[in-house]
Each structure stands twice: as C-alpha cells, then as structure tokens.
C-alpha cells in the first residue's frame, strides 16, 4: 500500500511541475505578445494624439492630450502603464465608437466565433473522411478528386468564391439568405445573451429565427469550411498514408481484423495525434476573423472590426484586437497540447 501511495504522490508532484511550467510558458508568451503589440503601436506612423483631437485642434489642446496619453514619458514607463491597464481589463477607448475596446470586442467577437465554429465543424466533418478516403484509395480516382478539390479550395480567392456563392445560391436559386447574420424581421424575436445567434435562438426555442440565422450563416461557413477542408484533407491523407504503412497495420491484418477497423480504429487513432494540431491551428486561423469573407457577407465580426479600425487609425482597437487574436492562438495551442496528452499515451506518462 505504501508503495502505491508513494507513487501517487510522486505522480502528483510531476503533474504540479508540469502545470507550473505550463503557466510560466503562457505568461512568457503573453508578455512577449504585449511587448510586440505595444511596440507596433508606437512604430506605426499614426499619431495617437491627432486621432483623438483631430487635425484642426489648437496647439494647446494637442499638448494637453499628449501629456494625458503619457507620451512624454520614457518608452519603458509607457509600457509599464500599458501593462497595468491591460491587467485591469482596460484596453482604452475606441476613438471611433467612443466605447471601451473590451465592449466593442465582446460585441463583434461572438459573430466571428459562431462563423468560425460552424466553419471548422464543416471542414473537419468533410475534410477528415475525405482525406481518409483519398489515402485508402491512393492513386485511384477518389484520391485525385480529393486532391483537386483541395487544390482549388486552397488556391481560389475566397472573396471570389464568396461572391460566386452569393450569386448562385442567394440571388439565383434563393436557397440561402443573403449577407448579414439575421433578417431584420427576426432581430428582436429573441434576447441576445451570448451573442451567438444560433445558440441564443435555440435556447429560447425561437426556431423561426434559428432557421433564418442558419440560412444566413451556412454559405459563409461552408466557404470557410471548404477552405479549411482543403488543408485538413491534405494533412489527413498524408498522416493516414504514413500510418497505413506501419508494421502494426500488418499485425492487425495478420490477426484477421477487417479493413474498415484497420483504417478507422488502428490507423486513424494514431493519425489523430498530429491531426489535432492541424485542426486547432485551422480553427485559430478562422477565429482571427477572415477579413475578406466578413466583408463580402457583411458579417459584423472581428475581421471587419479590425480592418475598419486600422483604416481609421484607431490604434487602441487594433492593439486590443491583436491581443485577443494572440490569446486565441495561445489558448488553442494549449488545448491541442492537452488533447495530445489524452490521445497519445507516450506523451501522457512522460513528465
């Protein structure tokens, strides 16, 4: 008994050490991220004072704001102030909307989150089986088909596909709703809580509004899904080809295991380990808010917000948005690391 408790205690210590290292890594990453965004904010040829006061302000007003913004202090002190503000959740005020950046991002981010999530689900559900299919039928027509579709998805400009999609499925066939997230008629049929319209309407049982929102999201989400599917199917194909050439696959065949089980259980379970990272990074890519898709579909998301802020020299908004995107990348990387632990026993037991 003492032996096992001793072991358990040691394993606990290992976990603690692992956790501490994780926290440290995240902290260092965030510090770097903050430093870079701060420096970018200082390097870009945008005068933050002019953005606040406008270019017709008298010299006295300009000087007062200059001091208010702390621009007279040394750079490291400005960075320190920036850090303090960020830690209290204060990213400053948007010059454009005159509202706190945090509120702005809380408003636009759910739109992007919803679009990206539906997109990555489509991309994964289609991309992974397509990649497996291509790998199993390597060199035959399914393989060629998946590869060509992937190549097209990868190389065709997404805004062009978006416009084409709108023209065909919205304007001509009337299969889907047009730009925007939901029709005006349904906009007040539900109370927005999370900002995820599909979620909110479903939770409140507003199925009419849900169907309308779904009809709005399906085209841009399919487009993003196709884009990520192109990458996911390619990677799935090559991971599966590598796994199917392994000796343990021969072992399974020697045991008389049916081919579907060899593919879907033995090989896929091994290919899933690197695949998780691929999917997580694709998801992060979509969460950045794809500017072109959001513009074409008038989708009020992060990408559109950032582009708009950048064009209007609203540096606080740009820096805040960049931080959010950075945080998403760090978070998804952490998540895929955790999933690695779940999926691969060789990583799991290593300290």
């Amino acid at each position, binding site marked *: 008994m003492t032996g096992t408790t001793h072991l358990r205690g040691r394993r606990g210590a290992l976990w603690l050490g692992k956790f501490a290292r994780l926290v440290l890594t995240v902290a260092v990453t965030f510090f770097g991220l903050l430093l870079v965004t701060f420096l970018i904010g200082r390097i870009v040829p945008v005068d933050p004072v002019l953005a606040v006061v406008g270019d017709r302000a008298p010299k006295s007003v300009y000087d007062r704001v200059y001091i208010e913004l702390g621009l007279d202090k040394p750079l490291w002190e400005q960075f320190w102030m920036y850090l303090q503000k960020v830690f209290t959740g204060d990213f400053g005020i948007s010059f454009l909307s005159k509202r706190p950046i945090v509120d702005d991002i809380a408003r636009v981010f759910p739109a992007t989150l919803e679009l990206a999530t539906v997109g990555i689900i489509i991309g994964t559900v289609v991309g992974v089986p397509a990649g497996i299919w291509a790998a199993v039928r390597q060199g035959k027509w399914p393989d060629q088909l998946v590869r060509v579709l992937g190549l097209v998805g990868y190389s065709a400009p997404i805004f062009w596909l978006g416009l084409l999609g709108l023209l065909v499925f919205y304007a001509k066939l009337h299969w889907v709703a047009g730009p925007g997230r939901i029709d005006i008629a349904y906009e007040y049929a539900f109370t927005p809580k999370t900002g995820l319209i599909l979620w909110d309407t479903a939770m409140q049982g507003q199925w009419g509004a849900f169907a309308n929102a779904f009809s709005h999201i399906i085209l841009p989400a399919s487009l993003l899904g196709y884009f990520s599917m192109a990458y996911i199917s390619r990677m799935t194909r090559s991971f599966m080809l590598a796994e199917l050439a*392994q*000796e*343990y696959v*021969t*072992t*399974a*065949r*020697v*045991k*008389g*295991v*049916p*081919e579907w*089980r060899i593919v879907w259980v*033995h090989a896929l*379970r*091994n290919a899933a*380990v690197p695949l998780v990272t691929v999917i997580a990074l694709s998801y992060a890519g979509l969460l950045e808010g794809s500017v072109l898709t959001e513009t074409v579909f008038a989708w009020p998301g992060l990408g559109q917000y950032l582009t708009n802020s950048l064009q209007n020299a609203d540096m606080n908004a740009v820096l805040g948005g960049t931080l959010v995107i950075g945080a998403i990348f760090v978070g998804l990387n952490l998540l895929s690391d955790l999933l690695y632990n779940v*999926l*691969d*026993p*060789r990583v799991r*037991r290593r300290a």
Partner: protein
Amino acid sequence: MSLLSVENLRVTYPTRQGPAEVVRGVSFTLGRERLGIVGESGSGKSQTGRAILGLTPKPGVATADRLEFDGIDLRQADARQWRSLRGRRMSMVMQDPKFSLNPVMPVGKQLMETLRTHGTPRSEAKKRALEMLEAVQIRDPERVFRAYPHELSGGMGQRAMIAMMLVSAPDLLIADEPTSALDVTIQIEVLRILDKLVAERGMGLIFISHDLRLVSSFCDRVLVMYAGQVVEELRAADLHNARHPYTQGLLNCLPKIDGDQRPLPTLNRDEAWTK
C-alpha cells in the same frame, strides 16, 4: 496430409526497369513441425512468409502453382476467407515489437482483438488473453494487460506479440525474425517460450531467420534461400553435410571458439547460384 504445401511460389514487384522477381519458384511442404528458412537480407525469406499469409505488400504480386493450407486452396481465397483464416488458423510474429504493436492501444485490448475479431465474447476473450500472457511467462499479466506498448521492454513486448498470435491457437505460425531485435540474453528466453508453446500445441512453425546456427538448433528442417530461390533443403541435424557451396561458405564463416583462423574466411559468391 501436410498442413501447408507450396509449389513454385513467385513474388514479383513491378519496377521502372520491368518486373523484379524477389521469390523465384519456392516449393516446400510443411507438417506439424518446425521448418527454418535462412538466408541473407534480400533473399526473399520474409516475402515467402508474407505471401503464404496473402500479405504481399502492394504493388507486389504473388503467384504459385499450388498454395494449399489444410486442404484450402489459398490462391482462390477471397478477402473474407483470408480474414477468417488469419488470426484464427494462421498467424505471424514479426521482428520488432516497437513497430508491430499499435502504440496507442493497450496491450490487452490488442490481444483481445484477435479473439474478438473471430467472434469470442468479451469476457471470455479477456480471460483467455490473461491466461495467454501467463503462458508466455509474464509475471504480472494484469499490469501488462493494461500497459501500452511503450511501457514494456523489448522482451516483454515480443512475448506479448507471441501471446497475441497464439491466443487463438492457430495451426500455423510464421515467425519472421522474432528475436533479431532483442538482446542476446533475452533471445534464448523468448525462443524457449516459443518452442514450448509450439511443441505443446502441435502446430506448424515456419521460423525465418538469418542466423544459421540458431535455426539449426531450433528447427527440424532447414531451407536455405539465396536470391529468391531455395538452394538447399536439409535436416537440421545434417547441416554439416550441406552440399551447396553457399551453405558451406556460410558454415565456414561461423566463428569457432577454439582455433585462431587467419585470414578470416569470406564468402565468395558465384553467379551460377542465382541461375
């Protein structure tokens, strides 16, 4: 009636320079005995073993005038028939447990899979899997059952592999260099276990190896392969009476513990052997 009869087995791979024949007309019969196949790498011994199980890797093609296992014509077997034979009536132990076991599946589950594939209920499969682990002299079967392959040593892994291949009590076992990846001290142990189980269960064994001395001490009969052909077939006890110059050459090259040979003998290859 013999368990396995092979006549004029040929394995061909298409290459850019035209088809390359790696097994060129191998014939032999096997009863419930231990048959050794020796040869250097590339001699076609592993390809012969895989062709018997119908597992010639694509795009290779195996043909034979006769390939019969216990009265079943394997040349006519469809995928379904192959699946019902493999794992249940014939199986194969491969070289290195580091690669031949699925790294993300617990050993016990892989063991049970052999039985479950052929319709054994779960609880019985588990019981038999644990018994089999004990039969390959694993001291803590419960622990190994739950363990992942990377948590086992090479010797333990290979024993688990042997257990996996023998758990369904097949009639024919092909052991393809089963000890080459193991430490010398563990090799003997694993061989003893294999020998004991094969003898107890009265199955046919094809033991593929490049180690002439090992094969001759372990098997009843030996086939010597060179460049895809069987150049000599003899009883293991008669190895010193080998006729073929290749076998004689190999035997001459074995180091002797007494006697100082200088210069060390080498093998002089003759083009005629490949004809």
